[in-house]
């Protein structure tokens, strides 16, 4: 061709092309979430619930366990004095629902944390270990997954006798991590072969450092989604257990136990079951919506390809 072209001396001198708005992953996710109306509603709802339950001592008109007037105030329908009515033990249902929310949500969050922590550690260990160790670890998980979880939980708490709240958290957390470990193992195995992980090893990084610096941030997305699901599941589980009488110790209020108090007379004294029930439904729906929103915001957009 013979064209004499001046040899290039400089490298990339134009600013990088931004096909998506600038900012780190967290900022972008935040923006995505705020964009979708369904997620905004869910977040608002959850925020409201958290504020209400955390502020229970200030917002609740009565002590949740106070028997206000054993005769005159027994099982009264909602009124101005008692917006959610009273239960068969003459306690203010609104207060019980507010304080109960602290218990339910607190138990759910803590148990979910246990689930995610144990599940992640176990799954990562399996994924990064040798094939035999991996196989052994996962067979244990398979075995545990084949047991019906609710029955297992029920048996555990029933046999234990009187369960305290911390123990309940532990039981709930330690029976729910199996699915998470499978998820984490699958994700880590897939990531392990990605070139940037190989690059990290080539730089001299050890397994633990590589895990925390490279693997964990990149599985954060599915973990977050799994986390919202975990919280949601524990809420339902706890409600179920308390409803059956083996959850939170009597007379502690949780949404499940309040429902139980009103279970005998559902048709007549509907307010005792409906209000906590509504709280559970709203929370679960909001968490589901948040999980969906997170899944959409985090997954395909995460690596936009020019």
């Amino acid at each position, binding site marked *: 061709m013979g064209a004499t072209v001046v*040899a*290039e001396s*400089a*490298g*990339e*001198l134009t*600013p*990088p*092309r*931004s*096909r*998506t708005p*600038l900012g*780190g*992953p967290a900022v972008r996710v935040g923006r995505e979430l705020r964009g979708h109306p369904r997620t905004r509603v869910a977040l608002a709802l959850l925020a409201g619930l958290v504020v209400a339950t955390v502020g229970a001592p200030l917002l609740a008109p009565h002590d949740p366990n106070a028997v206000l007037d054993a005769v005159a105030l027994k099982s009264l329908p909602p009124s101005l004095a008692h917006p959610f009515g009273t239960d068969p033990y003459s306690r203010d249902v609104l207060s019980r629902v507010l304080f109960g929310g602290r218990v339910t949500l607190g138990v759910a969050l803590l148990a979910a944390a246990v689930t995610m922590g144990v599940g992640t550690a176990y799954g990562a260990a399996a994924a990064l270990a040798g094939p035999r160790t991996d196989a052994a670890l996962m067979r244990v998980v398979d075995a545990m997954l084949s047991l019906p979880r609710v029955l297992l939980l029920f048996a555990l708490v029933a046999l234990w006798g009187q369960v305290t709240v911390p123990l309940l958290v532990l039981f709930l957390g330690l029976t729910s991590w199996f699915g998470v470990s499978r998820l984490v193992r699958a994700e880590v195995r897939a990531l392990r072969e*990605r*070139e*940037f992980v*190989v*690059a*990290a*090893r*080539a*730089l*001299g*990084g*050890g397994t633990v*450092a590589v895990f925390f*610096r*490279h693997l964990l*941030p*990149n599985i*954060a997305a599915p973990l977050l989604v799994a986390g919202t699901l975990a919280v949601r599941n524990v809420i339902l589980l706890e409600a179920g257990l308390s409803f059956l009488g083996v959850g939170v110790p009597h007379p502690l209020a949780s949404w499940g136990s309040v429902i139980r108090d009103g279970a005998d007379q559902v048709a007549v004294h509907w307010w005792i079951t409906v209000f906590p029930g509504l709280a559970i439904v709203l929370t679960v729906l909001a968490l589901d919506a948040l999980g969906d929103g997170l899944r959409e915001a985090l997954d395909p957009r*995460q*690596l*936009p*390809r*020019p």
Partner: protein
Amino acid sequence: MTAAAATPAGAAAAGVAAEPLLSVRGLTKHFPIKRGLFGRAAGAVKAVDGVSFDVAAGETLGVVGESGCGKTTTGRCVLRLIEPTSGEVRFRGTDVRALDAGALRRLRREMQIIFQDPFSSLNPRMTVGAIVREGLTVHRLAEGAAADARVRQLLDEVGLRPEYASRYPHEFSGGQRQRVGIARALAVEPRFIVCDEPVSALDVSVQAQVINLLQDLQRDRGLTYLFIAHDLSVIEHIATRVAVMYLGKVVELATAERLYAEPLMPYTQALLSAVPVPDPTATKRRIVLSGDVPSPANPPSGCVFHPRCHHPQKDAACARIVPPLEEKAPGHWVACIKQPPTAAEWGAQQAAGGTRPPQRYLPLAAPAARTE
């Protein structure tokens, strides 16, 4: 199973004067194939099957071949990112395979790697600056402000604006991301870099920028490259010596000039003649190989290339004997048990309706006497 480890013991003959920086002998990597309920081994993918070569300090050894030939696996085995099944890898005299974890980590400072895919070789969750800084952190070469300064300097050296250190990989183009990968490798100040198809995923104009950059860096820092690629034009441009691989074996090894002027191995001839030439007036006769590349799980017996070979003297011996890498001409090693054919022999084959390489690949003179 493995070819008799051809010892280019004539390292001197291959143009390597002093002790080579990297020395590979009989490198083998077999990936077992598991079948059945209990994962019984049912054969192996012989990705790399007895590869030997030397790399002298300051030179660029090109490794070229098509998909499945084992070049990428070879590069990773040399760095022990994949554990070889057998063979010896010596870096500055040290046996790489015998090192423990700590010593291996220290060695990793000196031997680095650049990857092919600019989109998957950078952690999408880390800023570009953090990516480049990682090597400094792992080897405790610099901290805090000193590390930041070093990162900015490296980015500048590869032609990126230092201010971009706080941006994320997805905000850059393919060529820019590749530069980040180069900066990351340079951060630990290696002597030797395995370039694993660094420009294959880039557009032509960007390719040229990155190739120039790699050559500049080599000159300025005295680097040694093992340059893996499938693009023959790129290899010819950048490599001092070239090894051609096919199905896990090195089939030809020579200086770049010799290889491109006079390839002696039939596969290399076919490979070179297959490259489309950007000149519409050039005569288009080429060797078209029949059939597909066999699977590395089930390579042909004897010479792995024999089913597709067009050598006039191909016979049953080719299917039986695994050819060792022999020096057929000074500094020019070929894995073929037959002599390179003369022009007359090619002509006779063509007259009989067979193949003949394009004129430019025919031997210039009678082939050199085979070394006993």
